[in-house]
């Protein structure tokens, strides 16, 4: 088995505790060494995003036929065409994400409420897109904090959506105030179950959670395929789609159509605060993080490593399940096959971009949600497929994961204090 001598030295439990006390009682600003780290933890994601956008721009130029044609005429025309392509794409992205300022002003002046709603819809739609990202990003981040890599958020989202949908259409006669929380809870419970199994297997048998959660993903897909073509199929429908969720289980929307902005966004923010409170303000959270940083030290300090791993995976699954529940109850109002569009894998990028901190995850989710939402419009106006966002995400994630690259590009100094990395081991350990 792995010899411990090879692994970098982990801080002991006492050391972690002392650092924790430091953080509690001494604001990090006064500590010079800490300051370097703190500024870089903000600077590196920022630079990563900017670099990602630049690389995305280069990519757009390289894949636009008109640019090549223009370069064939003259160098200046080529540059102009390149600039044109990028600016068209990114302005499409911007107006798609935040709305067109000119249109907003015109709508406000006209005073027509439908016009106003349409003009302001993009920015609210970005928030709608961000909401599942917040839940899923929190799910992965919480797992990372406990040293487990929940790569199976996708499957947990599916199961959460299934259970929430089921409660949403099968339980009748409840008032919304009970039905909505019940459906959300069902979603969380479904996801938690899907996270519990790999967590339990990891803690009891050492089966690596990465493989197990990937397997659970496929089992979830097959299960939902079965349910949507069988027991949960909408009567009379030829498509694999569930019955419509009852209005009493809908997450309330704040504005009339076409604005889909719903309560889920605020629930997500509330949950993010809860996760923050749990991780950083409670003894349980401290245990969870200690198990994540150094399971051996945690064990010697009398903490129950098994329990914490299972708990972390279950909580992580519950959060992912909430993402699924939120989507079906707030946006789709039914469950169809292929409803989750890669939230599970994107959420890994979110957790890392947000440095596994709830606040960071919320900000990262807002960024990615905005990009995704804006990309739909960019696809229409500039003809750039919205898959460019995945490329951006990958590039950003690459820079976050290997900050040395960003430091080389921007000639930053290496921080004096070792930054907190992700502690995930291979299959063996």
């Amino acid at each position, binding site marked *: *088995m*792995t010899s411990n001598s*090879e*692994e*970098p030295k982990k801080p002991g439990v006492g050391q972690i505790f002392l650092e924790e006390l430091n953080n509690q009682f001494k604001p990090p600003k006064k500590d010079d060494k800490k300051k370097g780290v703190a500024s870089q933890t903000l600077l590196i994601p920022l630079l990563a995003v900017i670099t990602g956008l630049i690389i995305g721009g280069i990519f757009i130029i390289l*894949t636009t036929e008109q640019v090549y044609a223009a370069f064939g005429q003259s160098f200046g025309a080529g540059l102009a065409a390149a600039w044109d392509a990028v600016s068209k794409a990114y302005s499409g992205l911007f107006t798609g994400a935040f709305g067109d300022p000119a249109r907003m002003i015109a709508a406000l002046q006209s005073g027509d409420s439908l016009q106003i709603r349409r003009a302001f819809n993009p920015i609210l739609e970005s928030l709608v897109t961000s909401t599942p990202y917040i839940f899923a990003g929190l799910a992965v981040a919480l797992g990372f904090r406990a040293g487990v*890599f929940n*790569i199976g958020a996708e499957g947990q989202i599916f199961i959460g959506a299934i259970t929430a949908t089921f409660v949403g259409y099968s339980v009748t006669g409840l008032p919304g105030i009970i039905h909505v929380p019940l459906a959300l809870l069902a979603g969380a419970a479904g996801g938690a179950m899907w996270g519990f199994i790999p967590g339990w*297997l990891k803690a*009891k*048998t*050492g*089966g*690596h959670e*990465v*493989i*197990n959660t*990937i*397997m*659970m*993903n*496929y*089992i979830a897909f*097959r*299960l939902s395929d*079965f349910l949507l*073509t*069988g027991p949960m199929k909408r009567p009379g429908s030829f498509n694999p789609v569930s019955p419509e969720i009852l209005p009493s289980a809908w997450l309330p929307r704040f504005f009339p159509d076409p604005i889909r902005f719903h309560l889920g966004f605020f629930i997500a923010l509330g949950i993010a605060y809860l996760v923050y409170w749990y991780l950083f303000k409670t003894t349980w959270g401290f245990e969870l993080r200690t198990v994540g940083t150094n399971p051996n030290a945690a064990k010697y300090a009398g903490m129950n490593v098994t329990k914490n791993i299972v708990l972390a995976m279950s909580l992580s699954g519950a959060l992912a399940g909430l993402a699924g529940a939120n989507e079906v109850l707030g946006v789709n109002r039914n469950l169809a096959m292929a409803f989750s569009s*890669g939230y599970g*894998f*994107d959420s*890994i*990028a979110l957790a*890392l971009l947000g440095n596994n901190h709830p606040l960071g995850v919320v900000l990262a989710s807002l960024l990615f949600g905005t990009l995704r939402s804006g990309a739909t419009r960019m696809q229409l106006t500039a*003809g*750039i*497929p919205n*898959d*460019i*966002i*995945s*490329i*951006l*995400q*990958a*590039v950003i*994630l*690459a820079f976050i*994961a*290997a900050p*040395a*690259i960003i430091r080389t590009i921007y000639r930053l100094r290496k921080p004096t204090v070792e930054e907190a*990395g*992700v502690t*995930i*081991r*291979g*299959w*063996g*350990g």
Partner: protein
Amino acid sequence: MASTTNSQMFHKTFVRESPVRQRVMGAFFLLLALAIWFFFARSVDGGAISSFGLSTFQAKTQLDPWELPTLNTLYVLAIVCAVFGGIQLSRGFKKYTNAVLAVVVAIFVFGFLVWATAGKSLNLVGLFNTTLSKAVPITLGALSGILCERSGVVNIAIEGMMLSGAMVSALVGSLTQNAWVGLLCAVLTGALLAWVHGVFSIKYKTNQIISGTVINIFATGLTSYISAKFMQVYPALNNPPTFGAIAIPLLADIPVIGEIFFVNNLFVFAMFIFIIILQIALFQTRWGLRVRAVGEHPKAADTLGIDVFKTRYTSVILGGMMAGFAGAYFTLGSAGRFDEVMTAGRGFIGLAAMIFGNWIPTGGFAAGLLFGFADGLASRMAILGITIPSQFLLMLPYIATMIVLAGVIGKGHVPAADGIPYEKE
């Protein structure tokens, strides 16, 4: 021959021979016997006959179908399972337990087939052909994983490398109208992505699972982008020539076996060749010993003068080439066009097959066949009119992988330094 003894030690599985395990296994065999009787035999007509086709309509010599009296066959199978269970409970098969387990499970699956075809007919050659072709990308994915992980680098980016290989081979194949050039470019694409994975995980010592995720997200985005922007707009860009089936002279005329194994396309033959080469290369050559040494104990390997970084780069890039090759199977060997996310998770299943096969090429192939068989059988369930939803059948390989990973079948041998970046002192 120090290397041979070492290699045997390296891939020896550690079978638990605890009395509890012996009893559990014995009870499991009896349970399967009971299941054959309870679920299959009881619901079958006394006079029903199960008919298995042994040649497709293309075969030169048409064989008569193999006909079995359903009920009696099921009784025999149940009794054989029960006898195995009895022996396991009383004496135990000791180190052969896992082999017997495989036999009993195979008997159970055969019993299932006999039951499912009661009063109907099922073409076994067709079923095994599907199994084999479905096993190709999974097995090649497993080989890719084995190459990387034997040297100590976890590669969950097989999926992304496959997807990129599939896209590039379709694009280049269409542009040049030459399948071989397409194939070559797919392999090179896999190598390029693997090199990136190597730079991240070997040079920058990034977490290898995250690095793999980056490549997966990137590959999904890139292939879908190119597909949406060009390949769907200009159909000429998505029309590559494909590798057709080749019949190997003489061997192809052997009844049953000839049709299953010797009438196939390039990818199936290549898979067999790769399995053999990799099996020998890993366990019988100096290169293989070095790769495994680097994956087990890089520090010791370094001390003995093996260049850890170089060995890892080589293995990872070779693994990437294998994944790129597997990707070309989807477009040049099967569909004849590229569709967005067409690999549909085969890379991840390849990873599972690698674990299932205990990081051994032949084991990976066996696991690939298992997954392929489930796929092939599921597609025939509807034709046979079986009421069990095929989705549950398709779940079984995943569940089996989780069981294997949990160590129920015996502790697998994970390369000890798998996933741990090497720091040179």
